[in-house]
């Protein structure tokens, strides 16, 4: 009778199976057909209130020492023998569920987990899996869930993905208003930033003061800084993979946040119950109103607007198949003292299909289209013009995963993309024809890669992962390509002819093999050592004369002058967890070798430049460092300490002495900051109050000081000789935040108040030191501090 009832329940559907509290009785799972081995228990974990899938929750089978992580759909799968088990379900910020079962046949468990918001005093900042850092073979992959990021002090009222990553060892930023990340001595363009699989070229709002991703619609971010899996390619330093959340398939809900700089709202829910969910998010700034209310005339005439929006439609149409469509857009415009407006916009669409073809074979297919454009609009009244530029990416990826067993997996596949760059078009907008329209030649490039990766373990102690990626690249016409005199520097003066390539004609090809390998040896369950090597190719370059990603920067494809960037990285790491994973520590050492990094001739003109080869010089680079990391995952006090000692160097040696930089000696790159220390702490004062603090210290970035002053045409000028020989003063800053959770009546009144102060002691950290002959004072050095005062912010957020 009991069996029949069970059977009935099984067929009625999993909704009735949902468990909120721990079952007091051992459940019998599966249809008993006398199976003894290979019993497959699958299941799905959702949030009890919102119905959202819980991605990255851990399912532990203590009897087998087996840990499983739920996938993007909240699903997991266990292969067990017929026996009794005491399953444990854990998820950051949720109550742990102990779930005793008797597995008798293939079956299904659906679970709802409750957020522990008001129950627990402790904060848990595990990533997806508490022992992943020890057990996994991959090196330098850091996944931050939004729950972890939420424990950090917010920046300008909001949690910020990019800034949070910069608190980790080996990851830094040039300064306070700079977008992008420098990962292990690489430039900002050497990171592939992808949102739901589609590349994003400018990840910032307001020149880097804000990250252009709305944290409420992001599920998690993974940064690969050492051994990058073979399925990723195209950039030479790191991969930043940002995955959006899926909406709930059972219930409507959302988040609302208001701060004194911006507001955001996201709503999600089922379009077709249990089948299709939708999630929409929008964030907008109201900084413009405040700029207008200030008395400073320059500021008053300035404007700054931004917004970003997301739409995610996800359709877990069956246990085996899931489709996800994601749309992302971000927009910025900025006008300084009203004459010239700069604007930029990201757009990205992607469609993903995930399928479990069999219990061992899975497939993932993704198609994407992204468009990044920027414009400069000059309305000064004389020679008015617009400059427009855009980058289009269209591509697809397909990969298959085959699991021979839990500890022996293969992934293989391929990807293709076409990049079209319209580097710039100048359109006169004045009433009279005073300037000529001008267009820089379009660029077209195609990249294709095939890859293979095998990951396996030998016993408990040894883990291996090796892979290979083969990249090919074609640079296509139509294009007019100049020839230059040999034995002379490439310049306008040494051009001797031109070749016309027709539409689609191949101008240049490159290819390369990128091996990836890592090895892990575990001393015991809590400590391991890992070795890694990888080689990566990059066929697109950020042509920027500043140290940060500026909206006016030009991206350039590799052509017959500009060869692909190649990076080789060797790394070693030791990992040790203490006290049942409460403390997580690691030491990593790396050495990186870079080829064909772009450097610039003095005073290079980069915007609207049809012959960029005349302004660029290839450089070689090398970077090395040691990274120390201690993290406390659990308890009233959580947080981490990360310290990095690293160098990032460049060298330019050309056949022409006059083009060498610093006489061909190694010199510090713009973002070389040898010492970098971050301390982060979050203390739970009571069940609904927590305080957090971040302290950051780093060596000042390199800068060039003048070696002499001279007069020319009434200007007192500085003579610069060697690049980056001095440094700005050291950077340090303390940020504090306090968070109060209010419990009101009804869902709409449960809110979070967060008050934060950035730069508590108001240090004027110099972004730059520059030299100017200002009217009325002697020529001297000036300091630009982006965040020169303590900056408070207040935000209020509710979940409904």
């Amino acid at each position: 009778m009991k069996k029949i009832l069970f059977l009935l329940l099984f067929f009625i559907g999993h909704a009735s199976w949902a468990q909120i509290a721990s079952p007091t009785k051992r459940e019998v799972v599966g249809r008993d057909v006398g199976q003894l081995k290979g019993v497959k228990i699958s299941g799905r974990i959702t949030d009890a209130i919102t119905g959202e899938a819980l991605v990255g929750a851990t399912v532990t089978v203590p009897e087998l020492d087996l840990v499983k992580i739920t996938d993007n759909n909240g699903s997991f799968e266990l292969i067990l023998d017929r026996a009794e088990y005491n399953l444990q379900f854990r998820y950051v910020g949720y109550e742990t569920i102990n779930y005793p079962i008797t597995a008798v046949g293939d079956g299904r468990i659906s679970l709802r987990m409750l957020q522990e918001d008001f129950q627990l005093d402790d904060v848990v900042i595990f990533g997806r899996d508490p022992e992943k850092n020890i057990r996994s073979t991959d090196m330098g992959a850091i996944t931050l869930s939004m729950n972890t990021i939420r424990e950090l002090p917010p920046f300008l009222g909001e949690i910020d993905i990019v800034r949070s990553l910069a608190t980790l060892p080996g990851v830094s930023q040039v300064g306070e208003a700079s977008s992008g990340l420098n990962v292990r001595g690489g430039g900002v363009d050497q990171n592939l930033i992808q949102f739901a699989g589609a590349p994003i070229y400018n990840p910032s709002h307001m020149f880097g003061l804000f990250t252009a991703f709305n944290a409420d619609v992001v599920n998690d971010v993974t940064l690969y800084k050492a051994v990058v899996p073979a399925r990723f390619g195209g950039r030479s330093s790191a991969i930043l993979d940002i995955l959006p959340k899926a909406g709930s398939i059972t219930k409507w809900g959302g988040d609302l946040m208001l701060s004194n700089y911006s507001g955001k709202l996201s709503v999600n829910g089922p379009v077709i119950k249990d089948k299709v969910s939708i999630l929409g998010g929008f964030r907008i700034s109201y900084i413009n109103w405040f700029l207008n209310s200030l008395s400073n005339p320059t500021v008053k005439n300035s404007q700054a607007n931004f917004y970003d929006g997301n739409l995610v439609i996800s359709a877990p149409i069956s246990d085996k198949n899931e489709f996800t469509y994601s749309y992302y857009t971000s927009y910025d415009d900025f006008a300084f003292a009203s004459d010239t407006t700069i604007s930029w916009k990201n757009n990205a669409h992607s469609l993903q299909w995930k399928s479990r073809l069999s219990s061992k074979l899975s497939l993932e297919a993704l198609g994407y289209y992204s468009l990044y454009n920027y414009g400069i609009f000059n309305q000064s009244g004389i020679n008015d013009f617009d400059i427009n530029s855009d980058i289009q990416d269209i591509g697809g990826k397909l990969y298959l995963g085959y699991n021979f067993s839990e500890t022996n997996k293969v992934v293989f596949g391929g990807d293709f993309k076409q990049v079209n760059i319209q580097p710039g078009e100048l359109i006169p907008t004045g009433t009279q024809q005073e300037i000529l329209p001008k267009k820089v030649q379009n660029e077209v490039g195609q990249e294709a890669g095939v890859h293979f990766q095998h990951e396996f373990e030998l016993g408990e102690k040894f883990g291996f992962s090796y892979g290979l990626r083969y990249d090919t690249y074609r640079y296509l016409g139509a294009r007019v390509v100049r020839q230059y005199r040999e034995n002379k520097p490439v310049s306008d003066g040494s051009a001797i002819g031109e070749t016309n390539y027709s539409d689609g004609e191949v101008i240049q090809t490159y290819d390369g093999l990128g091996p990836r390998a890592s090895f892990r040896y575990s001393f015991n369950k809590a400590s391991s050592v890992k070795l890694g090597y990888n080689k990566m190719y990059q066929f697109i370059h950020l042509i920027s004369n500043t140290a940060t990603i500026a909206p006016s920067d030009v991206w350039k494809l590799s052509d017959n002058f500009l060869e692909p960037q190649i990076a080789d990285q060797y790394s070693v790491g030791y990992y040790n967890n203490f006290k049942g994973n409460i403390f997580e520590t690691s030491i990593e050492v790396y050495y990186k070798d870079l080829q064909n990094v772009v450097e610039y001739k003095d005073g290079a003109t980069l915007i609207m430049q049809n012959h960029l080869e005349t302004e660029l010089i290839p450089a070689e680079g090398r970077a090395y460092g040691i990274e120390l990391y201690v993290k406390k995952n659990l308890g009233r006090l959580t947080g981490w300490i990360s310290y990095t000692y690293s160098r990032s160097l460049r060298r330019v040696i050309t056949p022409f002495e006059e083009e060498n930089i610093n006489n061909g000696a190694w010199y510090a790159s713009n973002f070389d900051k040898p010492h970098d220390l971050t301390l982060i702490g979050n203390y739970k004062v009571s069940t609904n109050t927590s305080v957090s603090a971040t302290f950051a210290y780093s060596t000042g970035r390199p800068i060039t000081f003048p070696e002499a002053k001279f007069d020319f045409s009434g200007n007192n000028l500085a003579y610069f000789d060697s690049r980056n020989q001095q440094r700005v003063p050291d950077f340090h800053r303390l940020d504090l935040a306090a968070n109060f959770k209010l419990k009101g009546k009804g869902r709409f009144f449960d809110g979070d108040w967060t008050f934060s102060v950035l730069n508590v002691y108001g240090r004027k950290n110099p972004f730059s030191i520059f030299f100017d002959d200002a009217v009325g004072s002697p020529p001297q050095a000036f300091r630009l501090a982006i965040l020169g005062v303590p900056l408070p912010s207040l935000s209020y957020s509710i979940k409904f």
Partner: protein
Amino acid sequence: MLRRLIYILLLLPMACIDPFKVEVPEGQQLVTIEGIIHNGPGPHAISISRSATYGSVFEGLIRPVTGATVVIRDNEGRITFLEETENSRGNYFTPAGFRAEIGKSYTLQIQTVEGKVYSSLPERVLSSPAIENVSLKTVTIPVEGEIIPRSGVQLISEINDPADQKNFYFWRLSPVVHVLEARPDLFVNRETRTPAPKACCYTCFRTEATGNQSLFIAQDDNFNGLTTRIPAGFIEDNGLRFVSKLRVDLKQYSISQEAFRFLRLVKQQAEISGSIFDPPPATIRGNMISLDNPDEVVLGYFMAAGESSKRIYIDKSDLTFRQIAGIVPDDCRTVSGASIDPPFDWKP
């Protein structure tokens, strides 16, 4: 109180720029050349100096190099000697009647009293299209903490750019001559501090070098072959210059591509603002070399150019915004450069 608190929270007073003391390496004393010769009336000047430590004015003085032998040689081998004048040390002038000729190349050669020899690379003189017209635009520049903005007049050169050649333009302003209005009746005796009205003089003509605030240069990439208007100069309104009429000559030079590249670097550096988008500092290398030691760095640029010039008179009514007129409570002749008589060719 709450409103105040909110205002503090909302404020965005983040960025700031302030002078900063840094240890700058002791400056090298590099020879610096500046000068332009052209096909207009002379004399043309070449100045030679030595660079000094960057920093405050007290840390290093830019010293003129005097007593050098300075010659200009054209491509036919003709040599012109330049003379240093008594009251302008380090400045060397071409003899009366010297003009550069269109199409010829010139090199500058210098021998210092220490016997060191420097030479420029040859510079070819290209003709400059005529300035068809000069139009004016009043410009205001907001100043932090001030209600009244700075202002002045921008000079815009209208030219017919020749389509058959690449042109590089450089503009300079002659010293201005303007009507100066004074109030000698308000004169106060400085010792007795009592009013001591003077009878004369209320109106003078003052000659003054205004400088140019910035470098005005252009290349015809964007307007080759067009009739175009390009900002070519700026005269700041100091409250005295635009009370009646002001005269200025706008001088337009056709310079070489290399000279343009040099000036662009100078302009870039002169206009640096310390913003996050500033390009990194660039080495400004000119066209001078040391014949004794090829590794010696010589700063500056010797230019040879075609000149076209246009004289304009700016009336106070041409400005849409003017500074409040300044008051000179004295005889206008006491102001430097002022005289009671207009220049002989004053024809507004």
